[in-house]
C-alpha cells in the first residue's frame, strides 16, 4: 500500500487520475505525431498527384520483398509489445522483460533491413543530390520521389530509434521490478508510441513500395 501511494505524484488526487492523465497525455502526443506525419503525407500526395507515372516508375526501384519483410517484422513487434503490456498488467515481470526484449530485437531487425536498403540505394546512386543517377525516364521527378522516400522512411526510422531507446529504459525498469498490476503506466505509454510507429509504416509501405506494380 505504501508502495502504491508513493507512486502517485503529489499533485494528483489518486492513482486513477494519474493513470488517466498519463494515457490521455500520450494520446494527445500521438495526435501531434499524426500532424507531424500529415505534413509529409501531404507533400507525398501533392507530388504523386502531379507526377504519378514518374512515381510509379521510381517506386519499382524499391524492393517489395524487403518492404514486405519489414512490415511483417514490425507488426510482429507490435504483437510482442501488446503481450508485454498484458504481462506487465499481471505483474509477470519475467515475461514482460522477455516480450520487451523481443520487441527491441524486432525493431533492430527492421532498422537493420532498412539500413541495408539505404546502403543499396546509395550504391545505386539513387540518393538525391549531385550524385543522383537514374536510369529510367524522367529522372527529375524520380529524384523527387526518392527525396520523399528518404524523408518519410528516415523520419519513420528516427521514430523507431527513439522507440527502441524508450523501450530499453522500460526494460531496465522492468528488471528492477518497478512495474506491477497497480502501476504499469510507463509500459502502456511506451506501447502506445510503438504501435503508432507501426501504424505509420502500415501506410508508408503501400504508398512507397506498391505503386503501379502491375
Amino acid at each position, binding site marked *: 500500500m505504501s508502495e502504491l501511494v508513493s507512486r502517485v505524484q503529489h499533485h494528483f488526487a489518486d492513482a486513477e487520475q494519474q493513470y488517466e492523465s498519463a494515457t490521455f497525455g500520450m494520446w494527445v502526443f500521438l495526435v501531434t505525431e499524426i500532424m507531424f506525419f500529415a505534413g509529409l503525407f501531404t507533400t507525398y500526395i501533392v507530388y504523386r498527384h502531379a*507526377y504519378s*507515372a*514518374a512515381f510509379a516508375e521510381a517506386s519499382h526501384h524499391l524492393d517489395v520483398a524487403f518492404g514486405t519483410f519489414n512490415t511483417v517484422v514490425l507488426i510482429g513487434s507490435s504483437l510482442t509489445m501488446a503481450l508485454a503490456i498484458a504481462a506487465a498488467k499481471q505483474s509477470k515481470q519475467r515475461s514482460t522483460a522477455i516480450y520487451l526484449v523481443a520487441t527491441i530485437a524486432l525493431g533492430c531487425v527492421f532498422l537493420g533491413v532498412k539500413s541495408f536498403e539505404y546502403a543499396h540505394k546509395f550504391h545505386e546512386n539513387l540518393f538525391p543530390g549531385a550524385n543522383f543517377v537514374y536510369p529510367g*525516364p*524522367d*529522372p*527529375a*521527378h524520380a529524384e523527387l520521389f526518392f527525396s520523399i522516400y528518404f524523408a518519410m522512411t528516415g523520419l519513420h526510422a528516427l521514430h523507431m530509434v527513439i522507440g527502441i531507446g524508450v523501450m530499453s529504459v522500460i526494460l531496465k525498469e522492468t528488471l528492477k521490478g518497478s512495474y506491477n498490476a497497480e502501476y504499469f503506466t510507463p509500459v502502456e505509454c511506451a506501447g502506445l508510441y510503438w504501435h503508432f510507429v507501426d501504424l505509420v509504416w502500415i501506410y508508408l509501405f503501400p504508398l512507397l513500395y506498391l505503386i503501379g506494380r502491375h
Partner: protein
Amino acid sequence: MLFTGFFIFPKSASTFAGEVDAFYFFMWALTLFFAIGIAATVIAFIIRYRRSDENPAGADIEGSLQLEIMWTAIPFAIAMGIFAWSASIFVNMQRPPDNAMEIFVVGKQWMWKIQHMEGRSEINQLHVPLGKPVKLTMTSEDVIHSFYVPAFRIKADVVPGRYNTTWFEATKTGTYHLFCTEYCGTNHSRMIGQVVVMEQAAYQDWLAEGNTNATGIGASLANLSPAARGEALFTEHGCKTCHFDGPGRVGPLLGGLPGSTVKLEGGDVVAADSRYLRESILNPRARVVEGYEPLMPTFAGRVSEEDVMSLVAYIKTLSPPPGAEAHTTTAP
C-alpha cells in the same frame, strides 16, 4: 479620387485603380465606423459608470441572446458583402481580356527582363501603350520574385518553374514605380524599375527604334520578335531534326499544338498550355505523347527561360499541317 497623387496615395494609372481605391475608402469608412463606435461607447461607459461611492459595484447582468445574435449576424452580413465586392474586383484582375497584347517578363536576382512581341527587349523598364490591355506572362530564373506596380494596383508573384499571368490597362501616360515585392535576397530593395506609359503612337515609334544597345538578353538575336528568336533557336538547337514534316520523323508535329489537347502514354489527356509546352522542352520525359518513344533530350540548362518563352511563341505561329485535324499526335 480626391487624394490621388498626394504623398500618402499612390498614383492611379490603370482601370483597376479606381475600383480598388473605392473599395479601400469604403473599408476605412467601415473601420472608422467600428473603431470610433467602440471607442465612443467605451468612453461613454467609462464616464457614466466610473467607480464612485454611489456606484461601488457593477450590476448583475448575464448577457442577452438577442444582442449576441445581432452582433453575430450583422458583422457576418457585412463581411460577406465585403467578400463579394472584393471577389468581383479580384476575378476581373485574374482574367486578361482576349484582345490583350502579350509581354514576357522574366525575373532574376536582381533584375526584370522584359521582352516585347515585336522584338524589343528591355531591362528594369517596361514601356506600354496607353489604353490597351496588356497581359504579362511571367516566370523566374531563380527564386520567387513579385511584380508590383502600385499605380496599376496589380501584383503577381513570379515563381521559378511555372508561369504566372497578370494584366492591366493603363489610363494615364507617365512614369511609375515597378517594385519587386517578394523578398529575394541582397538587392531585393533594388530590384526596382519603371513602367513608362506612352501614347499608342509614341509606343509604336519606341518599338520601331529597336534595341539601341543590345545587351543582356540574347545580344546576337537582338531586335527579333520572340517568335523569330524562337525560330532561330528552333534551328540552332536542332529541334527541326526531329520535328519536321517528312518521312523518318521521330517527334510529333508541333503546328496547332498550343491550345489543343494531347493524349499521353498511359492514357492521360492534358491541355497543351504554355506550362505543358515549357515542360515538354525542359523535361520532355515527364509527359510523353502517346505513340512516341521518349527520345527527346532534355533542354534544361541549355535554354534559358526567355528562350523557352520564345520557342513557345514560335510554336504558336506554326500552322497545322494540311489535312491533319489540329495537330498530329499520331506516330509516323
